[in-house]
Structure formats: C-alpha cells, structure tokens
C-alpha cells in the first residue's frame, strides 16, 4: 500500500491570475506523496462534497492549507470548508479524532509587504497576530501546528525571492512527506 499522502488544500478563486500562489502551487504539484485539492475548482458552487473531503483528510498523513490572505483570514470557500468538513464527530467532539496527531502547515500569501504588517504599517499588526484563528482551528482538531510559511508582498515580490519561497515550500513539503514515512 502506498504511503499516506500529504493533503494540500488549495483555496484561491482566481489561481490563473495569481502570481505567487500559482508559483508556490507549481512547486508542490510535482511532488510525490502530495495530493492537491483545489477547492474553487472542485466546488465553484460552494457545494462541498463533505464525505469526499473527509475521506481525503482521513487518508492523509499531514494537511496543508494554502491560500491568499483575504481580509486577515481565509477565503470564504476555505472557511466554508472548515465549517462543513471539520465537523463534530469527525474532527472534534466524541469520536472526532480523524485528524488527531497529523501535522498542519499553513501557507499564506499577503498583498502587503512585511512593513505593512507591523505596528507602524497599514495593517497595524504583524502577521502572527492574525494567525491564531487558523492555528487554533488546527489545534482544536488535535493537529500539530507547524511553523507557518508566509509570503508577503505577493505581487511585488521579485523573481528571486519568489523562487526562494517556492524552493522553501518544496523543502517543507518533502519534510512532511518523509516524516509520514517514519512514524512519530
């Protein structure tokens, strides 16, 4: 039987027009042991197939949430995915241990650069102050929170930095894949 894959949940409504997210996704897509589910392609009508999503989660060794930051949070379809798929009895509550012990990596891109995400910047707070909601979602489901991967200034960032971020992402994913092979 094949090793349990890393599940990459990708949420971008317009991936073709995204520079950073598309680049990052491309870095992930070629990887063995990584399964990509692009939510906006699968569920343009927001009619999430809950059973299919839960099956994908159950058979995964680790979960990645990759998306652009929209209004300091996840895009609406990913939020809807949280609401519907991470249900009681599956992800939490009695019998809800499907995600228990799995690693969770948050990959987020922002339009604002690092300066904007500072006390003096237009967003008034560093990014880590916006992350607790997503982080606690993972923790509440019993997942192990990995150090998030953040790419600031997504449409200003130069080619070199983008390439570096993609390589970094690839390395992080490979690490998740190999850690799945050697159980904790």
């Amino acid at each position, binding site marked *: 039987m094949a090793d349990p894959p890393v599940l990459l949940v990708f949420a971008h*409504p*317009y*991936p*073709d*027009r*995204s*520079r*950073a997210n598309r680049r990052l996704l491309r870095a992930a897509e070629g990887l063995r042991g990584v399964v990509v589910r692009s939510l*906006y*392609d*699968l569920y*343009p*009508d927001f009619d999430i197939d809950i059973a299919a999503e839960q099956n994908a989660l159950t058979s995964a060794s680790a979960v990645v949430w990759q998306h*652009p*930051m*929209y*209004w*300091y949070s996840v895009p609406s379809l990913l939020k809807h995915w949280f609401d519907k798929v991470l249900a009681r009895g599956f992800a939490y509550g009695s019998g809800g241990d499907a995600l228990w012990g799995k690693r969770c990596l948050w990959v987020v*891109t*922002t*339009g*604002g650069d690092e300066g904007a995400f500072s006390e003096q910047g237009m*967003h008034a707070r560093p990014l880590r102050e916006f992350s607790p909601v997503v982080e606690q979602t993972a923790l509440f489901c019993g997942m192990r929170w990995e150090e998030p991967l953040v790419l600031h200034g*997504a*449409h200003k960032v130069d080619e070199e930095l983008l390439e570096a971020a993609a390589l970094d992402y690839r390395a992080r994913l490979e690490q998740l894949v190999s850690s799945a092979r050697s159980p904790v």
Partner: protein
Amino acid sequence: MKEPSLLASAIVYLAAAVICVPLASRLKLGSVLGYLAAGCIIGPFGLGVVEDAEATLHFAEIGVVLMLFVIGLELDPAKLWKLRRAVFGGGSLQLVAAALPLGGAALLLGLPWQAALVAGLALSLSSTAVSMQTMAEKNLSATPVGRSAFAVLLFQDIAAIPVMAVVPLLAARAEGQAAVGYWPLLRGLLAVIAVIVIGRFLTPRVLRIVAGAGREVFSAFTLLLVLGIAGIMASVGISMALGAFLAGVLLAGSEYRHALETDIEPFKGLLMGLFFIAVGMSIDFGLVASQPVFVVLLVLGFQVIKALTLRLVAQPLGVTPRQGWLFAALLAQGGEFAFVVFGVARSARLLPGHWDALLTLAVALSMALTPLALILHDFLQARFQARSGSQRAEDTIESQDARVIIAGFGRFGQIVGRVLLSSGVKATVLDYDPEQVDVMRRFDFRVYYGDATRLDLLHAAGAERAELLIVAIDDPDTSLRLVEAVQEHFPKLHIVARARDVAHWQRLRSRGISVVERETFESALVVGRRSLERLGVRPYEARERADQFRRHNIQSLEQVLPIWADEAERTKVARSARDQLEQQMERDRATLDRHHGAVGWHPEVEEKA
C-alpha cells in the same frame, strides 16, 4: 314528400349542422344540443325536409360504433382489467338502482309488470354518445368522474344485450308462449370469439400488409374492420358498439393504434353528428302537442328519478361528493339502446297503446336536456360555492389536502415534485397525461387527471387551502388561463410559475406573479458555464460569469417590464421572437459593457490584505 336523393340529404344534413352547431357552441350550449336542434328543424316534425328519421338513426348508429372503437383503442386489456370492478360492480349497482324506481313508476302509471320491467331497464341505460361527447367537450373524460361515468356506460353496453334478449321472452310470457332456446346465446358467444380472433390475430397481420399499400387502402381497411365487426355483432343481436369496443381494446397495443385513430376520427365525428341529428328528427312534436302536460311530467319525472339514483350511487362508484351531481347530470339522459329496446317491444307488442312512442319521445327529449342540465349544474354549483365557503372547510377529506399543488406533471413538474418530496413535502398533482400516475400514487402524491384550468378540479385538489401552486404547464396559453383563474378564484394561493420563453415570462410577470422561471434559462446558463470551462476558464470564474449574466439579464427584463406591459396593452400585438431576441441582445451588450471592469479587476487586488 318523396325521399330526397343521397346527395340532397347529405347537403341538408351538412348545412343544418354547419348552421346550428357553431350557434350552439357560441351560446355555450355544446355541440350535442346544436345537432339535436338541427335535427328538430329538418325532421318530419319541423320543416319536413327528411321524412324517415328512423332509417337515418339506424345508419348514424355507426357513429356510436366508431366512437366506441376509438375509446377501445385507448384502453389496452391491462387498463381494462383494472377497470373491472368499476365496470361490473359500479355498473350493475347503477343499473339496479335506476331500474327499480323507474320500473316502479311505470307500474304506477298502469303498465303491466312485464312492460314496466322492460321500461325500467331500458330507461336506466344512458346515452354513450351524448355523455362521452359532452365529457370530451368539457375536458372531463380523463377525470375521476369521467372514468366512473365511462365504467357505467361500458357496463350498460354489455347489459343492453340481455335486456334486448329478455324483451321477446317477456312478450312471449305475456302472451303465454314458450320461451326461446339457447341458440341465441351460443351464437353470441361465437360472435365474440370471432371478434377476438379477428382483432387479436388476423388484424395485426393484415394491417402490416395494408399499411404498405397506401393511405386510402389503410383507411378503407380500418372502416371495413370496424363495420365488419359491427355487422357480425348485429347479426347475432349483440350491441355493435360493444363489438367495436372489443376490437378497439384488442388493437390498443398495436403500433398502428394512432393511424387507426386518426383515420376513424373524422368519420366518427360526422356520424356522431348525424346520430344526434337523427335523434332530433325523431322527436315527435305531434305527440308533445297532443298531451303537452303529460309529456313534460313524464320527461321530468324520468329525469328526476334517474338523477337521484345516480347521485345516490355516485359515491360508491368513486365519485367525490362534490362531483356527485355532475355525475348525475352527465348520465341522467336515456340512451340509444332505449330506442332499440322500445322498437323491439313494439314489434313484440309488449308495450300497450302509445307507450312505445311516449317513452321514445321521453328518451329523445332527455338527451336534449343533458346540455341544459349541465349548464344548470354549473350555475347552481357556482352559487353554492359562493355561499358556503366556510362550510366546506370542515370537510374531513379536504383536511388532508397537500400544501402544494403542481399543475402539469411532465418533464418539468416531475423534477419539481421530486425535489419537494425529497424534503418530505407531498404535493397534489393535476395533469392530463396518466403515464406516471401509478408511480406517483405509490409515493403518496394525490393525482387528478384533467384540465388544470377547470375550477371544479382546482376545488377538488384543495386550492382553497393549499399554500402554493406550481404552474409547470408547458403551453403558455393554458398556463396563463390557469394563472388568471387562480388569481380570480383563489387570491390567497401563491403561485410559482414556469415560463416557456421571455414573452411568456413577461406575460406572467405583468400579471403580478413574482416567482417566474424560464424553463430553459438555468440549464442554458450551465451549458454556457461548462463551455467556458472547456475553453480554459476556471470553474469558479465560469460560475461567476454565469451568475453575472443571469443577474443582468433579469435586471434588464425587469426594467423593460412596465414598458412592455404598456405597449402590449396599447398595441395588443405580441412581438415577434426575432424582435425580442434583438432587443435582448442589445440590452445584454449594454449591461455587460457597463460592468466589464468587474470581470477583469482581479490582478491588482489579488491579495487583498
């Protein structure tokens, strides 16, 4: 007066029909009354253009034969088998219930018991021709009341055989002669077997050969078949109509069913008309004039007794209480068999004095009364309903009414109904087409056959208490008629409507229906979406574009709605589809141009925060 030539008679009959029938229809009296009036006018007691009413009547009976053949074509043996209880149980109940009081009344009028028995039996038979024609005109044939009436009529056709057979026996008894033997019965049986062999085994083969030989030959064979069978039956004293019906049933499964039907239809229509004309001609106005009070009382007494017994048996026959009187009005008249029975009784000298003429007259007049009785029924029912709206709310049957009524249960309505059912909402269904009905009944849908625009059907479906009416009828005119009727009579009922196209949509919207969906719009949008996806547009974005198109399209339609309604009022001319398309496309272009920026904004704002 000398009997006119065939050509001259044909001209007289056709002219009389062409003048009288449209007049009667215009006056909403129904075609039957028109034909009867035509017969009265040209008959021996009117202008006297035609003298021998009886010969015409005899000939025109072929019309009834053809009608029963066509009815039979629509009932395959399986369907007929399902009707067996209604036909034999219901039919015999009606016959006995009507024959006893009618015979009793005849006894009271001083007829000997043998004559009273024959009169009672003959008068309890109704006219298949009048009833079926009337029901067809009023779109009642496929409704529960229509089916009950048909079952009764079918049984009467069968029952007429022993009734006619019994007349000579009774006459013999009255005169102290010996009874006849079993030979007639055996001959009848042989004739029925012959019809089954012809209809079941011979005809399908011959039809296959004849169908290749051209249209006229096919028509000729169809007529030959029906008339031949009628001839066989007549030769052994069985109802010709019954034989034709049997042949029709046997051919109902044939692939030539529709061809047979279309071929017979015009002959049937003309000969039925001729039949009614002949009945009109046979009305003996001399007799009416000689004892007018007695004739009027006789006819009225006959009709009242028969209507009452029909009303009594209506419920056991599966007619709803509300339609009991309709059932009675449809079947109260005397039938064409009565003419034959009284004819036989006269030659057997069973009926004393003028009684055969009197009873024949009563039957003919009762046929003329049917359309009038139905008008009276509709009038009284409307009055009654207007006054006793609160009374009916306590009806126990009605309290089970579904919250939703679906009018039209074709490809469209079925999906709507199933979506509702999947949410546990049971609907009452109104439809013309009986195809899906058994399935629907099994799933607890209440199904009513018939024209959904008919008020009595809407009442029966519980339109007073339903919350929602889904108009899923495909034909725009029928749909609009239903909407208008509902708005007038059931103003509290909410309407959700299916529109065929933009013109229909506009007509529904301008009548104040707020929820109107074009039948192909949503699926066309999805096809547009799927096509965009094929062309490389991402699924979510394709969905957004379709959503956007929908919004703009509906907005622009709503914007022009007041103008459209105005124009339609002013010009009363529906715009051509081409004009509609042109205007719509211009509006689409305008709105999409205006919003074009919205489609391409994304790259700049990709990461919002």
